[in-house]
């Protein structure tokens, strides 16, 4: 039972993740006064990419062709571990939050290596910048998770969600700090404004796009899909940690439809907020990004200290 629920939830996440991307793009277009593309636009892009001929540089190594599959698999596993609708996931003991950070790191390292494989100036530039952003974002993300796991005495996501959502209501000031930090980290990790801009290819500023310049067709499609999955996973994580109400408890089949509705509503609101924040802020210079992430890191550590001062 729980295995089929797990598979259904993972498959749903994989299939519906581009929809969230479409929704964010749509909201952003509305806010910027443009005509919005349909919400299904990401699927059309994926279809187009899957139909094209792949163009690969002469001296690309097997690593270059293998990396998109690896990145996609990592993101699919990550999406499967985070509780979205149900909290009863047989996969999740395979990897706790620390391993989840490890999955993201594995995907990122493969992307950075693939970017360096062709040996163009842009590829290595993108890889260097990506690793710069991540070496600050990764410990900050771990600190956010640590705050949550100090509260729940566990690094298992289902147990954390169980503690935060399904037990008696309590206010944790530390989580407020962690939530702000988590938002800043997600922005950086998903290559959104103000750290990176997903919709431009401006040489001097791009990070993520610089890494995937050499990819085309099916490989690019897999990476774009993985990007959508990553955005979905981070959103689901944020919801699971900070707004978990409404999620179905273990074995509670009747609560599933309601949990689905709650999840969709939260994702719609979250996507709109993301688009709104992106619209009102500007991208920062690259060397301001460490300051941005340093702030996130400090906020996360502060959250942890507040947990010790106020909540123990």
């Amino acid at each position, binding site marked *: 039972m729980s295995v089929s629920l797990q598979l259904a939830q993972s498959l749903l996440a994989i299939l519906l993740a581009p929809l969230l991307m479409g929704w964010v793009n749509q909201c952003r277009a509305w806010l910027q006064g443009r005509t919005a593309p349909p919400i299904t636009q990401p699927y059309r892009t994926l279809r187009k990419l899957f139909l094209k001929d792949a163009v690969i540089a002469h001296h690309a190594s097997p690593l270059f062709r293998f990396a998109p599959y690896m990145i996609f698999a990592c993101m699919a596993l990550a999406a499967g571990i985070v509780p979205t609708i149900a909290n009863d996931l047989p996969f999740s003991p395979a990897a706790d939050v620390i391993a989840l950070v490890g999955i993201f790191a594995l995907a990122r390292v493969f992307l950075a290596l693939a970017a360096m494989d062709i040996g163009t100036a842009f590829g290595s530039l993108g890889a260097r910048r990506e690793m710069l952003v991540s070496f600050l974002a990764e410990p900050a993300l771990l600190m956010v998770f640590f705050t949550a796991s100090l509260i729940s005495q566990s690094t*298992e996501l289902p147990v954390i969600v169980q503690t935060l959502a399904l037990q008696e209501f309590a206010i944790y000031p530390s989580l407020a700090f962690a939530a702000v930090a988590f938002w800043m980290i997600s922005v950086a990790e998903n290559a959104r404004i103000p750290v990176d801009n997903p919709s431009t290819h401006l040489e001097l500023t791009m990070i993520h796009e610089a890494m995937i310049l050499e990819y085309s067709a099916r490989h690019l499609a897999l990476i774009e899909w993985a990007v959508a999955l990553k955005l979905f996973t981070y959103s689901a994580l944020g919801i699971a940690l900070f707004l978990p109400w409404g999620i179905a408890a273990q074995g509670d089949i009747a609560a599933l439809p309601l949990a689905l509705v709650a999840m969709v509503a939260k994702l719609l609101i979250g996507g709109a907020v993301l688009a709104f924040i992106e619209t009102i802020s500007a991208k920062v210079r690259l060397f301001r990004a460490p300051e941005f992430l340093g702030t996130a890191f400090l906020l996360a550590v502060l959250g942890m200290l507040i947990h010790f001062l106020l909540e123990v």
Partner: protein
Amino acid sequence: MMATLSLLPPDPVQWAWGIVLFWLVLGFAALLLQGSQHLLTRLVFPLGALGALAIAGVGIAGMLLPASAVILPIGLPDLPFHLRLDALSAFFMVLLGGAAFGITVYASGYFKSMASGPLALLALWYHLFLAGMVTVLLADDAYAFMVAWEVMALSSYFLVTTDHKIPEIRRAGFLYLLIAHVGAVSLLLTFGVLQGGHGDYTFDTMRLAEMTPFWASAAYLLALFGFGAKAGLVPMHVWLPEAHPAAPSPVSALMSGVMLKTAIYGLLRVTFDLLNIQIGWWGTLALALGLITALYGVIFAAVQSDMKRLLAWSSIENIGILLAAFGLTLIFYTDGKGALAALTLTAMLYHALNHAFFKGLLFIGTGSVLHATGVRHMGHLGGLMRFMPWTAWLTLIGALAIAGLPPLNGFVSEWLLLQAFLMTPGLTHPYLNMVIPVAAAIVALAAALAAYVMVKFFGVVFLGQPRDPALHEAHEASWPERLGMLWLAAGCVLLGLFPAQVIAWLAPVVRLLSNQTLVNDGNWLMLAPVSAERASYAPLIFFAVVAVVVLLTYLWVRRVYHGRVRRSDPWDCGYPEQDARMQDSAEGFGQPIRQIFEVFMKVERETPDPFDRKPHYSGASLDKLWFILYEPIARVTNWLSQQAGRLQHGRIQWYLIYSFATLIFLLIFTTR
């Protein structure tokens, strides 16, 4: 299982000593075989590798059997060698044998192009080095320990200075020798304190000696300094980035992977076994020093442009992590949290084992690159994955493992350590309670930076386009070299995929030191220290899911997609004159780190003049500690020795007066 064990003689310590003798004989036999290069590489090194495998086997048996001891009538008349093999020594013997087997198999291919004369000498030092390290692990009295320690230090000194015609290498060797001996003096003093006035230097007496907290702390601090100098603890680390790159690659691999661990072994032996009491602040000190070392090492690794120097700095980082784990173990242990001490100790031992495998692998990987290209500077490499795929893919496993990525072995020990950091709420000391999870932030930062370093290392050396046309002639490593790398890479994968088994296997060592064992709450494929509710990690499931998704995606893409691939030039962004030199150089890739952490470095830049016809750029990020700590010490030492030099006139009557005055002084001193 038990039946096969009972076939062994009851005391593995004699087996271990037998293998040490075998290595000694092998080393001196190599001298006799000077004429035959063929025999040296085809016979001596493979036999040495078999010895390493046997040592690992003895270690595995030694972990299961009770401790065994033997007294050897060698050395001075009244000072026989006491040898003893307990679970702790046995574990480090497994580490040594496992890593040294791969490295020595590799060495039999690596040294093929070396002239037979120097090679015979090198084989002697190499096997003496191995024998010395095993004897350090076996020693059960201070005398045997110090003799073995010196054999290890001196043989490795001669190995470091194999290319002694190069002045930098002689300089690196001297620095190594100097710091090794400053450390050895400190160890001698440690044992002097530990014997507690009995005058008996066997470890058995030391175990029984009752120490006051003051003298125990003195012994601990001396040991921390002495072993820290060997391990490369900041600020005694300066020899490490000089000496490790100077040595031939298999030797660098042995020094980084194994020799540094003997210092960790010594620290564990003195603190948990020989000393009767442990004090809480010792742990705090070690934790702080370890964190500083880890961060310092990884920052400098990120700005290196010589690939072996980069790996040497990364070893400093890993020693820092080991020491931080050691400190945390002490904190838990002195606080009476035995189960948590067991968890942290397990993480530490696991990481030591992991580091031996992946650092050995990476060092011999650079050895193959060095052989194929003759270049150590990463700025002249690139694109080697096409020419040496075996080396590249095997090195990739090592790089991913050391970057702490699942499902390889580096992640497991990092995961265990982070779990231990999260367990601190519960300590009786409120400040430690609060500060230690923050210390976890530093470990996480060091781990994330290690990923940066490894992307740089692998990306610049193996990926991209060759930065030098000569690289097109690079040849793949020979078969013995590949086998050596394969062994170590397999170790990285297996240690990563089967943590539950490894932890069960580590239990005797952990019980010996902390009187507790780590209970795995998970099943055979799941790691769940403390409880499954609290944390769990199942690398096999992890690996299987990723593999299945990769496979399914691949098949699905193949099915729905026509599969055409067109080859073309890379996209040039409308600027066709791009060449391989426009890729990030090693300096370029490290530039953001240099900019962020410039306070720790002394940066020397040479930028070209705008009218320069042949522009040349060079940049070096030097260790600031060298200038603010070591140079003043060197100046003071020089000044003092000059002052002492005034006493020396070269006239016999003056020297007679000195002797007379000394005698008078001593007489007054003793009769009082």
